[in-house]
């Protein structure tokens, strides 16, 4: 099914099914077309178009100097991006996979995150680091990590992750336009998710840092982001049969964290479950639960619960379904939200 959309200049255009991968590619293309200082660099991003084909066509359209196949060295790529940003460019770095970004951590932690601060605001570093992350695609070892907790724990970085086709476009555009470094986490199992979306008339996206309520409900709030949003929406539909009307909040950015939207929702519902793939211990859920408790204690009817990946190295693909939080685990957590007191 297609729906009509209206462009900025009032033309009607057909929205067609598009994948998140296509929306991300379009965001890169539009950013590069709009701003000649935007440069894409990474491994296989040029001729091949990236292993997930996100950068497909960019080298052809903008040339090898704007979309550059680099030597295979993540610290070197990010370090070079720092120097390019120092000279006024706006680099967008592709890390091929979540776990392949780790060699770049020293550059990220010691320089990218701190640069604005250590130069007293004199030199911002507008770098976007795109990282395909998370599991669920049958990837073998080192291809499925949920690394968001490391980035979240590093002051100076923004950490953004889209969960919808529309957000993939809008948030990536916003990230590239940001004068701060942004870790842009792409949920790789949603790369091929589809939605009706018109690239000619992309909906305006709010600035980075705004969560969004994807489903309103009164019984409890599911707080999630990226790859776990579809799981939570499915769980919310299934919960109707149990008599629960669940609200679902999509964080969209982990840093900045939208305390306001989260707290407002939990104050309305009185119950909350945080859902993510990342291991629970030391993961985002603990921080989010603490923030909710600090702000909404007197509104809470039950402890804030977490549904997370196990505290294990990411399992081999034939076992990953046991690791990933699914609908049943979310519903089990909802069931443990002390409903007895209500009756």
């Amino acid at each position: 099914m297609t729906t009509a959309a209206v462009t900025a200049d009032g033309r009607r255009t057909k929205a067609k099914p598009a994948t998140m991968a296509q929306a991300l590619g379009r965001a890169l293309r539009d950013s590069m077309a709009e701003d000649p200082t935007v440069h894409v660099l990474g491994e296989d991003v040029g001729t091949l178009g990236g292993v997930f084909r996100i950068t497909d066509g960019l080298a052809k359209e903008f040339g090898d100097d704007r979309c550059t196949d680099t030597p295979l060295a993540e610290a070197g790529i990010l370090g070079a991006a720092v120097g390019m940003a120092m000279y006024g460019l706006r680099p967008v770095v592709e890390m091929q996979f979540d776990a392949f970004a780790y060699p770049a951590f020293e550059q990220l932690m010691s320089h990218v995150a701190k640069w604005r601060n250590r130069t007293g605001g004199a030199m911002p570093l507008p770098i976007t680091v795109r990282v395909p992350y998370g599991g669920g695609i049958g990837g073998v070892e080192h291809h499925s990590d949920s690394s968001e907790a490391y980035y979240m724990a590093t002051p100076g970085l923004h950490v953004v992750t889209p969960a919808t086709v529309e957000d993939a476009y809008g948030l990536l555009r916003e990230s590239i336009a940001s004068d701060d470094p942004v870790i842009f986490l792409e949920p790789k199992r949603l790369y091929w998710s589809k939605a009706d979306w018109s690239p000619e008339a992309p909906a305006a996206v709010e600035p980075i840092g705004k969560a969004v309520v994807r489903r309103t409900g009164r019984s409890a709030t599911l707080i999630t982001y990226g790859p776990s949003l579809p799981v939570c929406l499915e769980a919310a539909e299934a919960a109707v049969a149990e008599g629960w009307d669940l609200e679902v909040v999509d964080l969209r950015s982990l840093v900045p964290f939208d305390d306001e939207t989260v707290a407002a929702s939990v104050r309305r519902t009185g119950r909350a479950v945080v859902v993510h793939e990342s291991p629970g211990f030391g993961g985002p859920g603990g921080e989010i639960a603490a923030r909710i408790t600090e702000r909404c204690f007197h509104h809470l009817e039950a402890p804030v619960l977490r549904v997370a990946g196990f505290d294990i190295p990411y399992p081999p693909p034939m076992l990953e379904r046991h690791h990933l939080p699914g609908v049943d685990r979310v519903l089990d957590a909802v069931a443990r939200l002390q409903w007895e007191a209500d009756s």
Partner: protein
Amino acid sequence: MTVQELPGAAAYRPTPPPAWKPITDPAPLLPDPEPYRVLGTDAVADVDPELLLRLHAELVRGRRYNAQATALTKQGRLAVYPSSTGQEACEIAAALVLEERDWLFPSYRDTLAAVARGLDPVEALTLLRGDRHTGYDPREHRIAPLCTPLATQLPHAVGLAHAARLKGDDVVALAMVGDGGTSEGDFHEALNFAAVWKAPVVFLVQNNGFAISVPLAKQTAAPSLAHKAVGYGMPGRLVDGNDAAAVHQVLGEAVARARRGEGPTLVEAVTYRMEAHTNADDATRYRVDSEVEAWKAHDPVRLLERELTERGLLDEAGVERAKEAAEAMAAALRDRMNADPELAPMDLFTHVYAEQTSQLREQAAALRAELDAERDHDEHDAEAGR
């Protein structure tokens, strides 16, 4: 048994696939067998005497700057100072070979190079005093922030030089690193990127013999650090790092080469760290005095002074004038460093992001309240005459 030993192996002559052939003839990339020298050799005849005198004045000033900064640590005015005493020829030459539009990428031991490039020494020293990480706007003098994590500034130099080249700007980046830093992965990645991109970068390795306590023999098995260049496909140059005229010439040639678009050069300057790693280090635990004494005979200031006096370019009065100028610089630095720096605690939250997050606004308000309470408390104490 190997393939070569198999029956009929003599007839087995596999031709490598066409893609395989050495891209670059390594011979022209190889460094000289001995560190290149100018002072005391015939080459010195080609050097402008004015340059030698300029180098001398700067070296004397640099030596005094190192002594003053070390003294400031003893007086509690600097938290720590990694001295470049003995390495002044490298520091000064690195600064002097660059044009104003070029960029310098110093490590934490290279405040002298930054100062010689024109940076206010107080601004150069805020990192080591401990009041500000970077005391200057890097763009003003085109000096990157002093870099503490070893070799991590080298890829920055490559990226900046690459960006300048893409823009068509005539800009060279000179990046400084020590012998220990050459073992870091970022050294390798930076040199590889620079060579592949033909970036206008000069890598200056000051081989001062030690990475804190670890001598070069435990750092590398390479014939020399300059030889590492060959593996990346760029020329390696080996130079006497205590010979200011030689370092100036070799770096100058590397900068000119980069500016011509011919790509990066790796320069190894063989020198010696006369002081401990920092004032907090004890060098007697890992090296013997006789070694230090031997290097004193090859001191960069003495080498240059000998050359200049032997040729009648510098007399005792000239030496005295250079010393006086250096003394005036040191006195001014001492006076200015003896004033307590102004601290701005609220700035802790100002430059984390372009726009403060709500969390940082809350934390800033909390610190503001603490500071106000402290001030009220102090005022109360003052009124009570305590």
